[in-house]
């Protein structure tokens, strides 16, 4: 992160601030983070108002003793370090990066938050050759520098060169509105372009009879105040299928393929301007109700941009549902470092040719699996999707 947007002040001028108090909320590339004060005192002056932007290191506020004269600090307030702070006076600077402990298996995202990636020239060259995004890696060198050995275990985008950036060649006409890109829009554009341009996608579609699953869900939810969501069922059953088909739960790594021991599944969640994929870790070991509870919390915070990076990075399989938007079927772009994504359509009553050629009315749902052909061959993808469909049609099979 180089520049952040100050979303909201949680303290106002005159408030007493203790070390560790949340001063304000800062929008980074992908999430809105709480910024905690590392100093204590009285908030004398807010320099950057809510909605304003600040570079890392800029002065955003001044702390000190009540009534203290801080005019000299204001006049040279830009490069952050306070010169010889008078008494308890302290200049509060924009956070360099909110430290977020990476979840197991999830790439650390310090680079995604700090913008500038420290890396050795050799690491940059290897990354460029293998289509690896350095911003998704954690460096083991001094100051987090990414060095050669950090790339050896990195998920790669493949051997293709980095995609050409779309050059802004279009001249807006009268009445057109030019919207600068938000940091999230940039991340979405980059990640999805890289996925689409480096991973050879292919698509498998299947129509599934959902009557049994809907009945099962209704029985499970009977008498429950909090109803388990369809997404929780999809996740739990997809996890079972992934355990049976480990080749699908894998990551392309340039000169190797990583098979993941845990099943970490992301769910695409729309935000006002963008989307994010909160991840439920280790779904293979969790029941539907556990997954549902975790998902409910993650989705709620995802919608309001409150996820920690460790909560949205590193999905190895992703579910994207547009059924509630009335879409029958669609294809989705694979969400790296995963190698497959499931696009889920709406459940609708349809006439179906049943046993003995009798036309029946069934609840049908179409899903489309996008696979990275470098990792998942057609027959492998088909076997996985067939078993997933069988389990959804007959949930008992998921227990087998």
């Amino acid at each position: 992160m180089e520049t952040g947007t100050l979303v909201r002040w949680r303290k106002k001028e005159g408030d007493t601030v203790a070390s560790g108090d949340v001063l304000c909320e800062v929008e980074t590339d992908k999430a809105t983070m709480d910024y905690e004060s590392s100093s204590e005192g009285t908030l004398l002056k807010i320099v950057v108002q809510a909605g304003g932007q600040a570079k890392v290191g800029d002065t955003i506020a001044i702390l000190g003793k009540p009534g203290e004269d801080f005019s000299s600090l204001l006049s040279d307030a830009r490069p952050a370090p306070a010169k010889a702070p008078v008494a308890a006076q302290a200049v509060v600077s924009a956070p360099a990066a909110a430290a977020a402990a990476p979840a197991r298996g999830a790439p650390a995202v310090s680079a995604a938050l700090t913008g500038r990636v420290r890396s050795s020239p050799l690491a940059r060259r290897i990354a460029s050759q293998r289509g690896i995004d350095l911003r998704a890696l954690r460096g083991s060198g001094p100051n987090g520098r990414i060095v050669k050995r950090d790339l050896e275990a990195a998920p790669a985008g493949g051997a293709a060169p980095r995609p050409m950036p779309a050059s802004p060649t279009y001249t807006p006409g009268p009445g057109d509105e030019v919207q600068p890109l938000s940091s999230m829009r940039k991340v979405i554009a980059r990640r999805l372009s890289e996925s689409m341009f480096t991973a050879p996608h292919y698509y498998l579609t299947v129509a599934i009879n959902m009557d049994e699953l809907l009945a099962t869900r209704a029985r499970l939810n009977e008498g429950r105040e909090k109803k388990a969501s369809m997404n929780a069922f999809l996740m739990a059953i997809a996890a079972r299928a992934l355990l049976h088909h480990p080749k699908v739960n894998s990551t392309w790594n340039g000169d190797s393929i990583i098979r993941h021991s845990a099943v970490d599944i992301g769910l695409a969640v729309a935000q006002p301007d963008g989307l994010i994929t909160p991840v439920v870790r280790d779904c293979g070991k969790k029941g539907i109700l556990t997954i549902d509870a975790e998902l409910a919390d993650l989705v709620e915070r995802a919608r309001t941009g409150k996820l920690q990076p460790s909560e949205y990075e590193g999905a190895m399989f992703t579910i994207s549902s547009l059924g509630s938007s009335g879409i029958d079927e669609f294809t989705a772009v694979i969400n790296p470092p995963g190698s497959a994504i499931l696009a889920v359509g709406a459940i609708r009553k349809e006439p179906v040719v049943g046993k003995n050629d009798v036309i029946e009315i069934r609840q049908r749902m179409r899903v489309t699996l996008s696979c990275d052909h470098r990792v998942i061959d057609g027959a492998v993808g088909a076997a996985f999707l067939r078993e997933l469909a069988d389990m959804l049609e007959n949930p008992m099979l998921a227990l087998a």
Partner: protein
Amino acid sequence: MSVITFREALRAAIDEEMARDDSVLLLGEEVGQYNGAYKVSQGLLEKYGPDRVIDTPISEEGFTGIGIGAAMAGLRPIVEWMTLNFSLQALDQVYSNASKMRYMSGGQFSVPIVFRGPNGPAEFLGSQHSQALQSIYAHVPGLKVVAPSTPADAKGLLKASIRDNNPVVFLEGELMYSWKGEVPDGELVIPLGTADIKRPGKDVTLIGFSKPLRMVLEAAEALAAQGVDAEVLDLRSIRPLDEAAIYESVRRTNRCVVVDEAWPFASVGSHIAWLVSRNCFDDLDAAVELVSAEDVPMPYNHGLELAAQPSVEKIVDAVKRVTYA
């Protein structure tokens, strides 16, 4: 192949070239009757007589200038400086005349001369007599600077230096004269400007020359015991510099440590570190490290004297920095 000392290898080179070419002569302080301050020229006065092995007064500027004049007139003098520390007296002759004569005369005069003697610190010699001065001679265009680390290289490179038509500063080391090593029998001439891989390796390139190279090889062995496979590249000549060999090695290992017993500021070592940084930029996994003398006058106290110089430990530490170990 015979095992001889560095001193004997130098003597053999001078002897063979004096026998081969009547225009080769040796001059300097105590090179004749005393057989050389470090006995490099032992027996040569007896063999070649006082016209070709000339004892000079204690006047570096004088006999260095006489050597340059003799070279311009067609002879091939070898000027022995008792130490490089004393050569500073003659610096104007070397800088202003030897290095520039061919250029300024439009090629009418060449200066086929070798200036040779011990360079760098030995022991207990104090600040003025413990200096490694290669940076000064490498700085000026028009001079060649040669710095062998083994008896065989010393012999082959000195013979090539004597035959070269340009002024060559040939760097030895007081502590090196008694070093022994295998030297091939028969004619041995090593072209100037060819570096030599003294130890092949794949994890890091250690670049050195002259006396510290032995220490670099010891460091490489210590590193091998820790699982780091270091390549040791002996430059052998500083000018001309075998840049191709340096880059070839660093591009294989992706890491580089330069070892130079001179001070670090504007030195041969710092220059090579810059060349590597510039020309191998995309191949480097870490910033180039330089192990040099500490940036201080040499202390007389022996503990401090050792601490002010490169050491096996300092080289190993630098390798750990470039390998992020």
